[in-house]
C-alpha cells in the first residue's frame, strides 16, 4: 500500500518466443547491441501456436508481473498456420483477463521476425514500460495486483 | 466470554516435517532409486527408531509430499532408506535430488510386521516390483536375528530384468544359509540369458507349493498381484491369519485423518499398513 518508494522493483516478465522468428529476432537484437530492458526472461518454444493459454496463466499464478507471446508475422509461420491459431487464442485470453479485472497491459503479443532486432527491442521496451506502469498503479493502491 | 486464546502453548505441528539430508542415491532399476537419508539434527537421528513395515511422509520443498515405506534395516541407527519409483511429481522430484539435498520427513507412521509372532516359523516373502521395498526392512530384520526363524524363501518377480530392484541384496540373501531366493519375470519380460523363472508371481507361487504347516507368508506388490496371490494362498489352504500383507493405498496425512485410505472401519495409515489376510478379507474387492 503506502510503502515508502523502494528502489525500482525488479519485474518478472516472461516471454514465450517462437524459435523460428522472435527468438532469432531477440538474438539479433543482442548481437546488434541494441539496448532494451533486461527484465524479460525468455522461454523458447517451437511455435507461438504451442502456447497453451494455461502457460500464460501459470506464469501469472506463479507471480509473473507480465507475459509476452511473440511469433511470426501472419503468412510466415514455419508450420503454415500456428501463429493464426495463437492469434485467436490470445485474443480470447486477453479479453477474459480484462473482464476479470486483470490489467491487460501486463499481457502483450507481438509479431517479430528473425530480421526485426530493432522491433524486438521496441516491443520489450513498450512491454516493460506498460508493466511498470501497471505495477506502479497497483502498488500505489490505485490499480490491481498482477494476479 | 471466550477466554483469550492461549498463545504460549507449544504447538505440536502434526503436519510439519523435520529436515533431513540426502546422503546417497542409488539406482536400483530403470525407474527406482533408493534414497539414504539422515536427519539434519543428529539428536533427531539418534531418536529416530522404527519397526519393519512402518512408513514415512517425504517432502520435497516446492514439489509436495508422498508416502514411502521404510526399506532400510531397523537396526541401522545412522540413516533411513526409502526406495522410490518414478511415477509422478513428487517421485520425479526425488529422482532429481543429489547427495546433500534437503528433504522433509514426517513419521514413522503405521503399525509394523508382527515379527514376534513369526518366531520359529518358516517365512515366505512374496513380492512383485517395487513391492519388495516394503518387505526389505523385514527381511533385513529377520536376517539380523536369523537363528530365531525357520527356513526363509524370497519369491520376487518383476516385469523384466531391468525392473528388478535390490539386485545386490538378492544376491547376498541367496548366499545365506537356509535362505532361498526365487526370481521370476513376467512372461514376455525375460531377455536372452535370463537364468531365473518366467511366470507371474502367483502362478510361480502355486508351482512352488509352499507347505502351509508352520509357515507365514508376507506379500506386497501391485494390487493385481496381491489379489491373485491371496487367491492362490486360499487355494493352497493357508490360514488367513498366517498371510500378511502391507497395503500401498493412497495416503496423505499418515495420521488417520484425511480419509483417503479408509477401508471399512480401518485407516490404512493408522491401523495398517500391515494387515493379516483375515483382517481385510471382507474388503478385498474394494482394495484391489
Amino acid at each position, binding site marked *: 500500500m503506502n510503502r515508502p518508494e523502494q528502489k525500482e522493483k525488479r519485474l518478472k516478465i516472461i516471454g514465450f518466443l517462437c524459435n523460428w522468428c522472435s527468438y532469432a529476432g531477440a538474438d539479433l537484437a543482442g548481437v546488434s547491441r541494441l539496448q532494451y530492458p533486461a527484465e524479460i526472461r525468455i522461454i523458447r518454444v517451437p511455435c507461438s501456436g504451442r502456447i497453451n493459454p494455461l502457460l500464460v496463466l501459470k506464469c501469472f499464478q506463479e507471480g509473473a508481473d507480465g507475459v509476452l507471446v511473440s511469433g511470426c508475422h501472419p503468412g510466415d509461420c514455419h508450420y503454415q498456420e500456428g501463429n493464426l491459431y495463437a492469434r485467436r487464442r*490470445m485474443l480470447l485470453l486477453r479479453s*477474459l483477463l480484462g473482464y476479470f479485472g486483470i*490489467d491487460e497491459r501486463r499481457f502483450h503479443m507481438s509479431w517479430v521476425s528473425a530480421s526485426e532486432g530493432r522491433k524486438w527491442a521496441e516491443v520489450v521496451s513498450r512491454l516493460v514500460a506498460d508493466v511498470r506502469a501497471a505495477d506502479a498503479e497497483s502498488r500505489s493502491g490505485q490499480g490491481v495486483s498482477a494476479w | 466470554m471466550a477466554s483469550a486464546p492461549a498463545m504460549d502453548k507449544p504447538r505440536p505441528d502434526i503436519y510439519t516435517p523435520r529436515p533431513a539430508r540426502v546422503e546417497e542415491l542409488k539406482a536400483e532399476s530403470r525407474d527406482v532409486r533408493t534414497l539414504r537419508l539422515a536427519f539434519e539434527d543428529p539428536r533427531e537421528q539418534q531418536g529416530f527408531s522404527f519397526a519393519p513395515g512402518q512408513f514415512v511422509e517425504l517432502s520435497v520443498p516446492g514439489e509436495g509430499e508422498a508416502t514411502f515405506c521404510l526399506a532400510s534395516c531397523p537396526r541401522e541407527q545412522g540413516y533411513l532408506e526409502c526406495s522410490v519409483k518414478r511415477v*509422478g511429481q513428487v517421485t520425479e522430484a526425488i529422482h532429481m535430488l543429489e547427495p546433500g539435498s534437503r528433504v522433509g520427513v514426517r513419521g514413522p507412521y503405521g503399525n509394523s510386521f508382527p515379527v514376534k509372532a513369526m518366531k520359529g516359523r518358516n517365512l515366505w516373502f512374496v513380492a512383485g516390483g517395487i513391492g519388495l521395498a516394503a518387505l526389505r526392512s523385514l527381511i533385513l530384520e529377520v536376517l539380523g536375528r536369523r537363528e530365531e526363524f525357520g527356513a526363509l524363501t524370497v519369491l520376487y518377480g518383476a516385469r523384466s530384468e531391468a525392473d528388478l530392484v535390490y539386485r545386490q541384496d538378492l544376491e547376498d540373501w541367496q548366499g545365506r544359509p537356509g535362505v532361498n531366493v526365487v526370481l521370476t519375470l513376467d512372461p514376455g519380460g525375460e531377455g536372452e540369458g535370463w537364468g531365473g523363472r518366467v511366470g507371474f508371481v502367483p502362478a510361480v507361487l502355486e508351482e512352488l507349493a509352499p507347505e502351509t504347516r508352520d509357515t507365514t507368508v508376507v506379500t506386497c506388490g501391485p494390487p493385481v498381484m496381491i489379489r491373485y496371490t491371496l487367491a492362490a494362498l486360499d487355494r493352497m489352504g493357508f490360514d488367513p491369519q498366517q498371510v500378511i500383507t502391507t497395503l500401498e493405498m493412497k495416503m496423505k496425512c499418515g495420521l488417520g485423518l484425511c480419509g483417503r485410505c479408509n477401508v471399512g472401519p480401518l485407516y490404512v495409515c493408522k491401523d495398517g499398513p500391515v494387515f493379516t489376510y483375515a483382517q481385510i478379507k471382507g474388503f478385498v474387492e474394494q482394495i484391489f
Partner: protein
Amino acid sequence: MVASGGSPGGRGPGGSPGAGTRAQEALRTSAAGLLAEGKVEAVIGYGLSPAGDVVPRFVRRSQDAAGLLWNDRCTYNLVGYLTDRDLLAGLAGPEGAAGADTAQSPRFAVTVKGCDLKSLVVLLAESQVRREALTVIGLPCGGVVDQEGRLLGKCVACPEEVRNLRTEPGESPANGPPAGEPAAARRLVDLVMGDPVPGDRIAASAPLQAEPFQDVAEIEGMPRAGRRAFWDAHFSRCLRCYACRNVCPLCYCKECVFDQHNPRWVSPAPGIPSNRAFHLIRAYHLAGRCVDCGECERACPVGIPLRLINRKVAQVVKESFGFEAGTSPEARAPIVDFASGDPEEFIE
C-alpha cells in the same frame, strides 16, 4: 417447502396446471413403446423423487415409463449423461455393454428441451455421441423455473421456434416451417411430444435485454478495479466443488486439466487466485462450445454468476470470430480454427 408449486413437482410446461398432461402422456406412451419394442436400452428423462423433487430418471423397463415426468420444473439438461460411458454401460447391462462401440452398440433415448438440443449439437460435432445410437425425444417448453418458482434467466430470451422445437439449431425461423408446424425433415429430434406451448410466462417476465450482451457490457462498464472486486467477491466463495464442471454437458474430458497432478496448472486448494484461474480456464475451455444452457450456474451452491463468464466468452467468439456455438453438427470449435482476417489490433 421446496416443491411449492401446485401439483407435485411443478406445473405444466406452459406454466399452467394441466397444460402439459398431453405432452407427458405422449412421452410415457412413446417411452414405453421404445422400451417394449427393444429399440432402446433405456430412456433418460425426468422423474419425481419420493420427496417431491424432479430428478433425472433412467427408465429401463416399459412398465416404469409411467414414472416419466414433464413439467416446468424439469430444468436439468440431460444431454450430459450421454458421455458418461460407465453410466451407459450400466444401463445397457451385461449384454448391452458387450456390444459397445460396435454396430450393435446399445441405443438410448434422451428427452430434450429446445435449449438442451444445442449441447447435443456440440457433442455430435465433437464426435462424442453417435447419432444413430440415439433416439431424441423433444419436449415443447414454455420456460422452466428454479426451486423458488422463478423463470430461469436463460428462458427469458428463448425464441418461440426454439422452445417449441419448430426449428432445430442452425435453422432460422425464416427458412423454417410456419408457426405451429414442425420442421419437415429433422436432423436431430426424432419425436416431439404434444403440441406447441404458449409462452405466456415468458412474455410476462422481465423485458428482453436491449442488446444481446447487455449483462456483459454492464460488467465491462465498471472500472478495472471494480471488475476485479466484483469477481473476486464471487470467487472468494468458490468451494472448488466442481459442480459447474461436472454438470456441464460439454465437460466430458477423461482427464480434466484441473485433475492433473503433473503439472498442476491450478492449485486444488481454494483461494481467490486459484479460483480465478479455475473459472477463467473453465470458461475458456468452453469457448465456442458453451450453448448457455445455464446448468453450471444452477448447480453452483454459492451463487457465482457463471453464465456471466460464459456469455463474455460467447460475445468474443461471436464478435471477433463470427461464431455461435451449437448451431451446426459439422462446425469446428472456433478455438481450434482461425480465419485470415481475424482481428489483431492487440498485437504489436
